[in-house]
């Protein structure tokens, strides 16, 4: 036998080396160390350390405008201001005046109650100088029939999309801009409907705010020609004005609202979990104070984010992976359950961050939802309704047990 036979034979032997070690386990006989033990533990927030803070997203910066006819027991209106529209146009180095043929308004419907028919938006002309300090009471006198510019019906078949309405003819006089207005048009929007309901409209902060489009004819005397021009303007300021300002109750945990409110909840994570446990599930359970109100068929999304450092209301949040999200339907009075195992595992334990979380609505709904979930806090008299974090974890496996 030649040596190369041996080399080849050895290579074949070793080349056939394949490992397949898995066999069925018959516990406890074949389970050294036993089976992993799952422990279920309920953690309560640090008493009195859970609080709500308001003002994260102001109404004028909200991604949506809220308009209702009493959905929450009071009316809510939207106001908007468009940038100045010049009364002349430069043609061949000469400023020339123009004649307005018609005007179109465009609004984006983000949400509505599809079961509520017969909705229509009423557009009112407001004094041009409105801003973030303008209150409901200040503009309420302007919502009178004399200032009504246009009524825009919302088709019953429209669930989301763009509404467009045109003003022409003699109605143009209602929105005529004068030098006294500095060419600025301000509008107020209210909702008219047979039942209490509301709509969420696009806002300038989200890039889908109201549009004011002017169609004009430009006369050029030297040529005798008439030129058509359009002047598109989008609202540079808009906000929602509730008839009744929201009041923050410091004894409960509030989320949402307008301006938006967030709730900070702090826990004391035991070292037995932080140091040596493998967390497999963590559920934040919140008991609502009352059934969730809001626009039917427009649920809210609750978001819990881990905090990077505990700076109270201004605690920076972890947004990469420490996020727990849950959708809450309007009318729900069930205990809210937010699955936040990755937040706990990766942020609190993995990055050794403070065991706190900031509860809010999802960004597209902050200051832009009729719903304002309110939950019991650690100050509740009944311990059963206080917030709680239910953690399921595995204890350190006793590998050393043979």
């Amino acid at each position, binding site marked *: 036998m030649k040596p190369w036979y041996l080399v080849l034979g050895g290579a074949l032997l070793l080349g056939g080396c394949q490992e397949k070690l898995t066999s069925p*386990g018959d516990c406890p006989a074949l389970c050294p160390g036993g089976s992993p033990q799952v422990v279920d533990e309920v953690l309560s927030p640090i008493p009195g350390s859970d609080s709500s803070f308001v003002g994260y997203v102001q109404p004028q910066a909200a991604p949506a405008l809220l308009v209702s006819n009493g959905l929450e027991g009071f009316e809510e209106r939207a106001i908007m201001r468009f940038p100045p529209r010049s009364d002349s146009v430069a043609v061949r180095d000469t400023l020339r005046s123009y004649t307005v043929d018609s005007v179109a308004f465009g609004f984006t419907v983000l949400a509505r109650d599809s079961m509520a028919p017969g909705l229509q938006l009423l557009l009112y002309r407001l004094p041009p100088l409105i801003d973030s300090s303008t209150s409901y009471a200040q503009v309420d006198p302007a919502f009178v029939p004399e200032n009504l510019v246009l009524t825009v019906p919302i088709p019953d078949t429209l669930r989301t999309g763009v509404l467009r309405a045109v003003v022409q003819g003699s109605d143009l006089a209602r929105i005529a801009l004068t030098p006294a207005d500095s060419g600025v048009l301000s509008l107020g929007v209210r909702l008219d409907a047979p039942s209490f309901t509301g709509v969420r409209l696009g806002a300038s902060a989200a890039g889908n705010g109201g549009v004011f489009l002017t169609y004009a004819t430009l006369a050029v005397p030297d040529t005798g020609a008439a030129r058509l021009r359009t002047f598109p303007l989008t609202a540079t300021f808009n906000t929602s004005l509730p008839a009744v300002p929201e009041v923050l109750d410091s004894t409960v945990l509030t989320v949402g609202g307008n301006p938006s409110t967030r709730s900070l909840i702090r826990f004391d994570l035991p070292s037995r979990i932080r140091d040596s446990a493998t*967390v*497999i599930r963590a559920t934040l359970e919140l008991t609502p104070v009352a059934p969730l109100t809001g626009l039917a068929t427009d649920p809210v999304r609750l978001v819990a984010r881990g905090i990077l450092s505990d700076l109270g209301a201004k605690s920076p949040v972890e947004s990469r992976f420490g996020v727990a999200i849950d959708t809450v339907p309007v009318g729900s009075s069930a205990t809210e359950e937010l699955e936040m*195992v990755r937040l706990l595992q990766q942020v609190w334990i993995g990055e050794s961050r403070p065991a706190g979380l900031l509860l809010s609505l999802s960004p597209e709904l902050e200051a832009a939802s009729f719903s304002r979930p309110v939950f019991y806090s650690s100050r509740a008299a009944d311990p059963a309704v206080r917030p709680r974090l239910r953690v399921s974890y*595995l204890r350190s496996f006793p590998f*050393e047990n*043979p």
Partner: protein
Amino acid sequence: MRAAWLLGLLAIVPGLAGAQSSQFGVRGLGFPGRGLNARVIASGGAFGLFDSESSLNPATLAGVTALTSIFTASGAYRTVENPAGTASTRDTRFPLLMVVGPVRRTGTALGFSYSGYTDRDFSIVSSSTLDLRGGPVGVTDTFTSRGGLSDLRAAGAYRIHDRWLLGLGVHAITGSNRVESRRSFADSTYLSSVQKAEISFAGFGISGGAIRQMGPRFAIAALVRSDGHVNVDRDSARVATIDLPYTFGLGIRWQPVPKLGLATQTILRTWSGANSDLMAQGGVGANNTFEVALGGEFTPDVQRPYRRPLRFGGRYGRLPFPLEPGTEAHEYGVSVGSGMRFAQQRGGVDLAVEPVWRSEGLHSEHGFILTLGISVRP
């Protein structure tokens, strides 16, 4: 033709036999190694106390006439049965590496070896249903272990008038286990978990052996070994100390005719010394073990004994670490093999095939172990 046959066997058997992963190595310190060369395994291990290319008896080194290095690879295909089901497993091991050689004009020889002391390579999967948060949740657990304990031996031997061979060895028992426990849940709201640890072992042992040649055809070998205890660390923290066994061996070799050599040996190990330590750790315990082997080697050409020898044998033994309290696992096997030398006997290859059966209560397994030994005398 012979070469083609051997090559064909080498090519086919790895497909049948991968190597060895025994369910009887799950408990305690694992599945014990044997420290035997392929040619000894081919005869059931019966010549283990007389073989200079095995690491069992240090006295055998005195029989070495040239510097020799030995490499052994083994593979096995095994069918495992237990109440949870049936599976086929395979793996590959390198259970013995040795370098031995004589010290000129002194009658002594030295050797260094690495052999598997225990093997803890396994992966077991079990399924069950847990009651979590008031509802049933299906779980699948996978426990995986890689590694084991190794026996590093430095030994010397001395020959007295060609009648007595005496040897002494010191052993470093070391090794580590990378162990992992995985649990996955049927309910996706529970995250799968992985827990890992490294268990390391360190111990020290000493062995002494003797071979008495009683005439040209008869010899007796004896072995005594003490392994003291092994320290067990988990991730660098001491968690236990486990007593290791004393080993007593006695072997007889007889050559009734020039073409036939027969041998038998018995090895006793006092693994029960580890019983209390293992139970204190939550284990099942340990039992004393013994192994009886009987085998022979038929040499067709006495002038060229390394050409086409036929080795055969059988063995029966008990395993130290039971799967359940009060039980004892045992194994038996039959073996056959051959080998050859080439390049003026500077190189050699030996092959052994051994069907084995093991059982303990409702747990059993059977399969083949293929062992390939290569020796080089530069």
